[in-house]
């Protein structure tokens, strides 16, 4: 049984929390450059140039890419042949607390949804855990912004609604979001499972690199088709009109009940701050 110490996890996670806030990931940078080539609207091109320049300034001056430095969301895969000495929860929470306090990141979390007092250190975090074969620990991190999160939707469709019902719901979610979630957006889709599993799948899908498709060709084709449909809405960068409204549609699916067709769409902004570490 391999042992990993709490402190080792804390240090590694803190490092990526900081990096994600300032350094736009390679996949999104490439996607923005490709979008600039493909955009037809002059306003849209000018917005995309601003976003590319924003990433350069953020990285050079260690200024956050976006003032909404997000809710820290983790997907953790724990190898069944490893053991954590100490607390995983404490390692992740403490990493976020230290990163946000030391690096002048915004504290965006309130302790209660109705009484709304800021916790002051951007904790707690959202942590999804699963167990996998092997002796490695994989931690996926995203600093999830509120503006795009607010435009997400869950629908409990009927099996008879079928593929067309699913596609329509996804395109409609993007259309309703319009300029609000800071387009160009990334559309995370979860199909199947249960009510909460669909939402979790959609969230997990926005962690996937832009440009990487579902390994199942059926879903990979659906991702490509939906990306064209969503971009044909004409909403464009920042919703001011143009070709490039979305950079990617990422779909994840899961078995579901004979009576159900759960569907969730999680919208991510262009400032997709995501990292993966394996210890």
């Amino acid at each position, binding site marked *: 049984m391999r042992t990993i110490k709490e402190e080792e996890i804390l240090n590694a996670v803190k490092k990526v929390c900081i990096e994600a806030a300032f350094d736009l990931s390679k996949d999104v940078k490439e996607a923005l450059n490709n979008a600039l080539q493909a955009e037809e609207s002059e*306003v849209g091109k000018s917005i995309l140039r601003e976003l590319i320049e*924003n990433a350069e300034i953020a990285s050079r001056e260690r200024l*956050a890419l976006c003032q909404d430095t997000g809710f820290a969301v983790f997907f953790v895969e724990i190898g069944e042949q490893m053991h954590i000495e100490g607390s995983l929860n404490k390692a992740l929470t403490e990493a976020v607390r230290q990163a946000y306090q030391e690096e002048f990141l*915004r504290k*965006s979390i309130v302790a209660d949804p109705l009484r709304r007092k*800021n916790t002051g250190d951007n904790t707690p975090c959202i942590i999804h855990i699963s167990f996998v074969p092997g002796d490695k620990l994989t931690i996926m991190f995203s600093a999830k912004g509120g503006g795009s999160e607010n435009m997400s939707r869950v629908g409990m469709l009927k099996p008879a609604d079928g593929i067309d019902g699913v596609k329509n719901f996804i395109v409609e979610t993007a259309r309703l979001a319009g300029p609000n979630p800071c387009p160009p957006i990334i559309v995370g889709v979860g199909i199947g499972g249960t009510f909460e599993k669909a939402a979790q799948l959609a969230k997990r899908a926005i962690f996937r690199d832009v440009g990487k498709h579902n390994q199942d060709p059926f879903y990979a084709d659906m991702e490509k088709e939906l990306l064209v449909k969503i971009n044909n809405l*004409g909403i464009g960068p920042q919703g001011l009109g143009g070709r490039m409204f979305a950079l990617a549609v990422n779909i994840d699916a899961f078995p579901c009940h004979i009576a159900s067709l759960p569907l969730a769409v999680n919208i991510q902004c262009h400032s997709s701050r995501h990292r993966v570490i394996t210890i």
Partner: protein
Amino acid sequence: MEKRIKAPLTDEIVLSLHAGDKVIIDGPVLAARDAAHAKLVELLDKKENLPVDLQGQIIYYVGPTPARPGYVIGSAGPTTSSRMDKFAPLLIERGLKGMIGKGFRSQAVKDAIMKYKAVYFAATGGAGALISKRIIKQEIIAYEELGPEALRLMVVENFPVYVVNDAYGEDLYIQGQQKYAR
């Protein structure tokens, strides 16, 4: 068409602006988001004085990251405007002339913009590092306890925005999408 304007705004400036115009703003703007709006409207409801005069003012919907030592401000891009829709019509009625944010406004806000001659601008969401360079001064003027949601007075220079909703009832979000929809 690119226009340069000076804040605070007059009716004459507001009426010269049209949906789709690129506008560069110089001068003082207030900065407030959800919690500060709720407090301002609460004071108005109780018929008490506001900590700031709204006449001709622009409010920028922003909750910046803390400034590093030696910096005026941290990352400071626009937040989603629709969360301020509940509060904006009353503030417009009381003299507010401009709002900077991102995303759709409600019909009530668009109606108030037309009735009282105001304007809604969009700044680039997610360009907070770049935008921070256009803010040359800032101070908290009320509600410091709200942290990122405090009410601030900023001075901006070369601050780039687009006119989305003008005093004539035009809407860039509708026009732009129609132009490129297939």
